C-alpha cells in the first residue's frame, strides 16, 4: 500500500522523534516495528487524511506487513520512504496555507461576530500550514459546530489529494 507521511525538516517524526532513513534517488530502507493499534507501528496518511497531519516535508511511503486502517491514519508494521514529494516544499505547502487562510477569511467575514477571529488570520500565516488548517476548521466550527469542523478538514484533504494526484 502506498501512502503519505509528513516529517519534520530533519526527517524525524513529530510524535516519537524517530529519525527516518530518507530516500535519495532510490527508496529508503525498510523499517520494521511491531504493530499494536494506537500504540506502536508506522503511521501514515491516505489521501483523505492529509489535512490532519500537514508538516514541514512530505514523503511517499510504501507500507507492508500488518496494516491497520484507522479513522484518520494507517498503522503498519513495515514501511519505507519511496520519494520526497518536492512539490510540497516547492510551493504546495504555501499554497495550502494561503488557501486555508482565504477559506478562514471567507467564513469569518460572513458573520460580524467572527471579526476577532478574522483579524487573527494574517498574523498567523508564519505559523504555517498546520496552524492555518486548524484555524479554518475552527472558524467553520464557530458557525456550524463539529460537523462543520470535520467538513472543512475533509475539504482541505480533498484539495491536497487533487493536487498531489497530478
Amino acid at each position: 500500500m502506498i501512502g503519505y507521511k509528513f516529517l519534520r525538516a530533519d526527517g524525524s517524526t513529530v510524535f516519537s522523534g524517530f529519525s527516518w532513513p530518507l530516500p535519495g534517488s532510490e527508496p529508503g530502507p525498510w523499517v520494521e516495528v511491531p504493530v499494536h493499534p494506537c500504540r506502536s507501528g508506522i503511521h501514515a496518511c491516505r489521501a483523505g487524511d492529509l489535512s490532519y497531519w500537514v508538516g514541514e516535508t512530505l514523503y511517499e511511503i510504501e507500507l507492508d506487513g500488518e496494516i491497520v486502517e484507522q479513522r484518520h491514519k494507517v498503522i503498519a508494521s513495515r514501511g519505507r520512504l519511496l520519494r520526497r514529494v518536492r512539490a510540497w516544499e516547492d510551493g504546495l505547502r504555501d499554497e495550502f496555507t494561503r488557501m486555508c487562510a482565504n477559506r478562514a477569511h471567507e467564513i469569518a467575514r460572513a458573520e460580524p461576530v467572527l471579526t476577532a477571529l478574522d483579524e487573527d488570520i494574517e498574523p498567523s500565516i508564519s505559523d504555517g500550514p498546520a496552524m492555518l488548517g486548524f484555524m479554518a476548521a475552527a472558524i467553520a466550527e464557530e458557525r456550524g459546530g463539529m460537523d462543520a469542523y470535520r467538513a472543512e478538514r475533509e475539504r482541505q484533504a480533498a484539495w491536497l489529494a487533487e493536487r498531489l494526484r497530478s
Partner: protein
Amino acid sequence: MRDHHLTCQEIVELVTDYLEYALDSETAAQFEEHINFCDGCAAYLGQMRAAIETVGSVEPEDVPQETLDGLLVAFREWKRT
C-alpha cells in the same frame, strides 16, 4: 463524539491517559491532530516525557540515620532468633 475541538486546556488533562494508551481511539486521534498543529502542546508533551525520564533517574533518598540505626538493631535481634 465530542461536540467541540479539543482545546489546549483539555489536552494537558489528557496527556497521562494518552501516554498510558487509555484514550478511546476517537479522542486519541483528536489528541494527535492537536499536537500536530499546536507547538505549545507539542512542547508540553515533550516536557512531560522529559519529566518522566528525569523522575526515572532519581536515586532513592537517604534514610534518616536514626531510623536506620533502629532497624539494624531490630535486624540483629531477628538474626539471633
